[in-house]
């Protein structure tokens, strides 16, 4: 990683020490201390209080709803990512750059505005609201809107990993398979998909992390009904605003665990992809 440098392009030892201290100090203050503060508060009243907080019925309902939302949004965005990457990297058509920018849009939209879009669309005073309530369909302040808002904010993750990965490969292997008589479906399942498994997994992990942790957009559309329309992050907020700090921090550790697992999985895939590249 660190190539041997000639002495003329290396800083004196004291400069190095100052820079390393500054970088580590900055990261310690902004990353390590806040995490430590959460763990301290979560376990401050002992293991029993911690377990009580994370196994309480409302917490379990929140975990279930979060898993449901992520379980629908992530596969949808994986399918979308595959379709978008195939269309964008394998064919030429006008407006491709515009399309790529549109895929990125959900990252540029504030989460609160993202949630608001679906209130304007499906809410009681929204565009489709009267029609929906006439047919007895409840979307906003209910589970469907939570799923839709989660899908919206996580759209770019998978597509963004797959597009460069597919572009780097070129169409030669697929063309060879087709020439040898494979059907398009066989070509996709046996050539394209296996080649994309690491970027797909990588994108799916980032997508899941965001889907599980989304707060702003889901907060706008959820209606905050305990045990019904609360995801884990919303449950943390409710507990916190109720001054149940220990419980709030205990539930937050679930999300911290997911975040750390995400980082580890991400590093493993990066390491794996790096090794694959070198052996080729």
């Amino acid at each position, binding site marked *: 990683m660190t*190539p041997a*440098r*000639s002495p*003329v392009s290396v*800083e004196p030892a004291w400069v*190095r020490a100052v820079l390393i201290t*500054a*970088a580590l100090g*900055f*990261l310690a203050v*902004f990353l390590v201390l*806040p995490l*430590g503060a*959460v763990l301290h508060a979560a376990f401050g009243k002992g293991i029993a209080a911690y377990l009580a907080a994370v196994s309480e019925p409302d917490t379990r309902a929140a975990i279930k709803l979060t898993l449901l939302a992520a379980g629908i949004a992530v596969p949808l965005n994986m399918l979308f990512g595959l*379709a978008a990457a*195939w*269309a*964008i990297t*394998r*064919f030429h058509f006008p407006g491709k750059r515009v*399309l*790529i*920018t549109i*895929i*990125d849009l959900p990252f*540029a*939209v*504030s*989460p*609160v*505005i993202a949630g608001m879009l679906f*209130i*304007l*669309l499906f809410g009681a005073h*929204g565009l489709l609201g009267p029609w929906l309530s006439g047919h007895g369909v409840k979307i906003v302040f209910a589970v469907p809107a939570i799923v839709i808002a989660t*899908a919206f904010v996580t759209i770019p993750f998978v597509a963004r*990993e797959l597009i*460069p990965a597919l*572009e780097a490969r070129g*169409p030669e292997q697929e*063309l060879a398979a087709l020439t040898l008589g494979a059907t*398009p479906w066989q070509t*996709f399942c046996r050539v394209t998909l296996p080649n994309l498994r690491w970027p797909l997994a990588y994108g799916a992990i980032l997508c899941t*992390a965001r889907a*599980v942790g989304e*707060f*702003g957009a889901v*907060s706008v559309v959820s209606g905050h009904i305990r045990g019904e329309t609360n995801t884990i*992050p919303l449950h*943390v907020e409710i507990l*916190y605003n109720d001054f149940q700090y220990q419980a709030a*921090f205990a539930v937050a550790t679930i999300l*911290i665990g997911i975040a750390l697992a*995400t*980082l580890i999985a*991400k*590093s493993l*895939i*990066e390491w794996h*992809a790096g090794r694959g590249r070198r052996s080729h």
Partner: protein
Amino acid sequence: MSAAKAKRRRRALPGFGLSLGVTLAYLGLLVMIPLSTIVWRTLDLSFGQFWATVTSDRALASFGLSLVAALIAASINVVMGVIVAWVLVRYDFPGRRIVDGMVDLPFALPTAVAGIALAATWAPTGILGKHLAAVGISGAYSRLGVVIALVFIGLPFVVRTVQPVLEGLDPRLEEAAALLGATRVQTIRRVVLPALRPAIVTGFALAFARALGEYGSVVFMSGNMPMKTEIAPLLIMSKLEQFDYAGATALALVMLVISFTILIAINGLTWRSARRASEVRARPAASELAPAAVVAGGEP
């Protein structure tokens, strides 16, 4: 790629209609139709009403706080991000790989957790906040709290855009500068920093754009006092809670115009610099980290 080659590709590979159809249908239903409702809603307002909403004292105060706090936080992230990237690429120290992995934590950590974690640290009873409180500064529930939250969520952007460029920088350039008599400071100022400039600008813009729209972490850190510590997304939220949809839409439209301008500028910037320096490849899985750069890299 030549037009003839492109045509041959189009004929040879299947699935154009299906893949583009799915892509457009999905984006249309989930992104374009919802976004267009903003325009439709804004048309409910006369221009006078729109203008009165977005220039009310409370709206202007929230826009001002959002812009200034995002600007300060992104600037702090530029300075510290370049230092962190430099240290991670150039120096070896125990635990470097773990530190490298930790940099992505703000991306992986849900913003609500970030918010309560920062509040626990910087509140007057917190481990850092009590030292600030001792000298009369409130770290949380103040404008400073907003900036701290925004520094946290924007932390990875500059590191992750600068890091790959620094890794790809040819060491011979610096050696040549040194052999030609440049001091180390001159070499860094005249050789290294210019090479990093596009990445720094992109990282700044990404951190700024993210900070502008941030909600989850800030609500726990700001105290949410109208005219003082209320950011623009929070004002939109409170208008929604009062069912003032027209007002919320007007504010959202202003925010969207600002964000889209930044997004288009970032895509333009990275596209240009990717063309100029196509030999400096981004790290294979730079992901969310250098979003526009990855997207630009995907362009044939």
